[in-house]
C-alpha cells in the first residue's frame, strides 16, 4: 500500500492539470444538449449552438467533444475545408485524441490526401493500437496503394472489433482475392454472407472468387443468387460477359438484351452482344452491334475497345 501511495502523491504533486488522469477528465456535461442535436442529425443547429462564447465555457471531455461535433456537422453540411480546420485545431489541442485524429484522417482520405491521412491514422494507432477506424482507414489506403499484405493485416486488426460488420468482411475478402489467397478469401466471404445473407454483394464477390478459380459454372450460379436478391444491373452485365467466356452465346445475347432494355448504350452489354454474334458466326450482326459504341462522340474504354474490334473484323484475316 505504501509502495502505491508514493507514486500517487508524486503524480498529484506533479501538477493539477494531470491529476484528472486518476479519476477521468473533468466534464460539466454542458455538451449533452448539443450532443442530442447531433444524434438527431441536425448539424445546422449543432453549429448554431456551438458559439465561441459557449465553447469558451467548456473544459475537458466537453471541449474535446465540441470540436468533434463541430467538425462532424461542418462535414455533414459539405463544408469540408472548415471541417478540416476544426479537426486540425482539435488535434493541436488534444494531440493524443484518437477520435479527432481518425476524423481528420478520414476527411483527408476521402479527399484523396492519403499520405497525410496515413500519418494521422498511424498516430492514432500509437495511442490506441486496436482503434478500428484507424486500421480501417489504413487498410483502404494500403489497398489503394497496392500494398495488399499490409491492407489485409489492417483489415484483420479492424475485424477484431468490427467482427459483426459484413461490409468490412467483404472488403477484407476483396483484398484477399486480389492477393489470390482463395482459401482465406472464401472464408471471409462466407462470414460476410452469414452475417448479412440477404445482401447481394456477398454473392457477387463469391461469383468473382469462383471465376478467378476457374469455376465458371459456380460463378454464374453465384451471380444468379445475387440477382435473385436484387443485385443491380452490374451483376447482369457481368453475367452477359461471363456467358461469352463460358462459350454460351445464345444465353449471353439474352442477358445482354436484358441490360440494354434499361440502358440502351451500355458498353459492356453491347460488347457482349457483338462477341456472342461472332461466336455464332454472324460477323455482320456483330459489326451492327458495335455501331452505337464506335460513334466518335464516345471516348470510354468500351468504345475504344469496340473500335479495335470493328477494325479487326473489317480487316482481312491475313492482315492481322
Amino acid at each position: 500500500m505504501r509502495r502505491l501511495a508514493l507514486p500517487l502523491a508524486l503524480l498529484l504533486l506533479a501538477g493539477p492539470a494531470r491529476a484528472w488522469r486518476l479519476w477521468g477528465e473533468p466534464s460539466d456535461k454542458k455538451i449533452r444538449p448539443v450532443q442530442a442535436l447531433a444524434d438527431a442529425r441536425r448539424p445546422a443547429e449543432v453549429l448554431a449552438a456551438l458559439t465561441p462564447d459557449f465553447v469558451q465555457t467548456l473544459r475537458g471531455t466537453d471541449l474535446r467533444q465540441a470540436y468533434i461535433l463541430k467538425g462532424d456537422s461542418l462535414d455533414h453540411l459539405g463544408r469540408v475545408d472548415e471541417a478540416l480546420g476544426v479537426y486540425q485545431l482539435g488535434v493541436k489541442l488534444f494531440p493524443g485524441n484518437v477520435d479527432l485524429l481518425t476524423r481528420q484522417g478520414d476527411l483527408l482520405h476521402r479527399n484523396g490526401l492519403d499520405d497525410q491521412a496515413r500519418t494521422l491514422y498511424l498516430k492514432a494507432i500509437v495511442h490506441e493500437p486496436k482503434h478500428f477506424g484507424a486500421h480501417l482507414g489504413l487498410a483502404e489506403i494500403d489497398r489503394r496503394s497496392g500494398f495488399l499484405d499490409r491492407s489485409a493485416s489492417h483489415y484483420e486488426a479492424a475485424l477484431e472489433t468490427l467482427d459483426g460488420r459484413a461490409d468490412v468482411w467483404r472488403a477484407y475478402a476483396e483484398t484477399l482475392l486480389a492477393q489470390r489467397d482463395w482459401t482465406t478469401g472464401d472464408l471471409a466471404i462466407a462470414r460476410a454472407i452469414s452475417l448479412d445473407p440477404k445482401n447481394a454483394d456477398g454473392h457477387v464477390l463469391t461469383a468473382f472468387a469462383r471465376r478467378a478459380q476457374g469455376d465458371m459454372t459456380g460463378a454464374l450460379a453465384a451471380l444468379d443468387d445475387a440477382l435473385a436478391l436484387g443485385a443491380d444491373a452490374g451483376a447482369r452485365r457481368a453475367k452477359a460477359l461471363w456467358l461469352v467466356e463460358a462459350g454460351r452465346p445464345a444465353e449471353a445475347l439474352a442477358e445482354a438484351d436484358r441490360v440494354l432494355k434499361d440502358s440502351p448504350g451500355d458498353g459492356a452489354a453491347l460488347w457482349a452482344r457483338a462477341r456472342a454474334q461472332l461466336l455464332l458466326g454472324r460477323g455482320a450482326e456483330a459489326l451492327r452491334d458495335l455501331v452505337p459504341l464506335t460513334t466518335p462522340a464516345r471516348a470510354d474504354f468500351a468504345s475504344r475497345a469496340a473500335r479495335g474490334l470493328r477494325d479487326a473484323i473489317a480487316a482481312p484475316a491475313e492482315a492481322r
Partner: protein
Amino acid sequence: MIRRAAAACLAALIAVPASAALDLSADALLRDHLWREVRQAPSGRRPRVGLVLSAGSLRGVAHVGVIQALEDAGFPIDLVAGTSMGAVIGSMYAAGMTPKRLRDFATSINVGSGNNLSSSSLISLLLFDKLLSSENTEIMLRKNIGGIRFDQTLKPFACVSMDVYTGEAIIFRDGDVAKAVRASMNLPGIFRPLEYRHRFLVDGGVVDYIPVDAAKLLGAEWTIASVTETDYTTSRPENVLESLLQVIDIRGSYLSREQRKQANFLIEPPVGDIGMFEDHRIVEAIDKGAVIAASRLEAAKESLILASISRLSAGWSAKGAKAE
C-alpha cells in the same frame, strides 16, 4: 471486459465506410473481361510484353516497387531490358528473383555496395585521379543470381553499356550476365572503364537511359517502361562528384525525352529528389514505385488490351474458337 463490449457495440452502430464495393460499371467489367483474355491468351495471340527499366542510380530501386505491383496484378512480362541500376534490378528479376527477394536485396544496398568505396579510395580518386573499381557489383550479382548466362535467365534479358572510346551503345544479350550488368552500371568518372570483349565500357545511362530499343531487339512488341529520372532543377551539386552525376542525369534526361515516346506505357515513380547518396531513402523509393505503379495499373491494362484486340479477335469467331 466492459470496455471491449462497449467498443463492439459502438463499432456495430457507427457507420464506418469499409471500402468501395466491387466496381461493376460497364468499363470496369469489360476491362476485367478482356484482361482475363489477355492473360490467358496463348503465345502469339497478344503482343510480347517488354519491361524496360531505366537508369537512375539509387533512385532505380523504385523499379522493385513497380515490379512488385505488376506481379501482384498478374501483369504478363515476357522479357526485360535495363540500364545501369535498371540492369541490376532487371537481371535479378529476369533470373527469377521474386519481388520479395528483390525488395530484401534493394533494402540491403548502400552507397558502398557494388564498389570499393572507402576513405582511402575516395582520397585517391580526388587527389590522384585514381578511379574506383566496380568489381563488387559483379561479386554482388554473382552472390544473388550465380554465374548465369543470358541464355539461362527465366525471362529473356538485355542490358546496355557504352564503349567510352567509340561512344557506341552496346546492348548485351549473350555471355555472362554479371559482367554485362557491371559494365552497364559502371559510372564514368567514378569507376574505371571495364575492359570486356575488347571494349572499354561505362554506364549505359549516358547513351541509352530508357532502353526501349534493347527490349525491341529481344522481340518486345509492347513495352512498359519504369523511368526513375532525377529532378535536376531542384538539386544543387556541392562537389565534383555531384556535379558530374548531375551532368550525366541532365544528359540522360535529354536522351529520355525521345525514348519516352518509343515506350507504349510509362510509369514514373516520383523519386526525382532522391540523391545518389541517400541510401536511407531506399524503402521510400521502393514504396513510391509500388504506389505509382498501382495507381497506373488500370491504364496500363487498358493500353495492353487495346494493343491485343486485333490478335485476340482472331480466336473470337466460331471458326477461330473451333481452331483453338
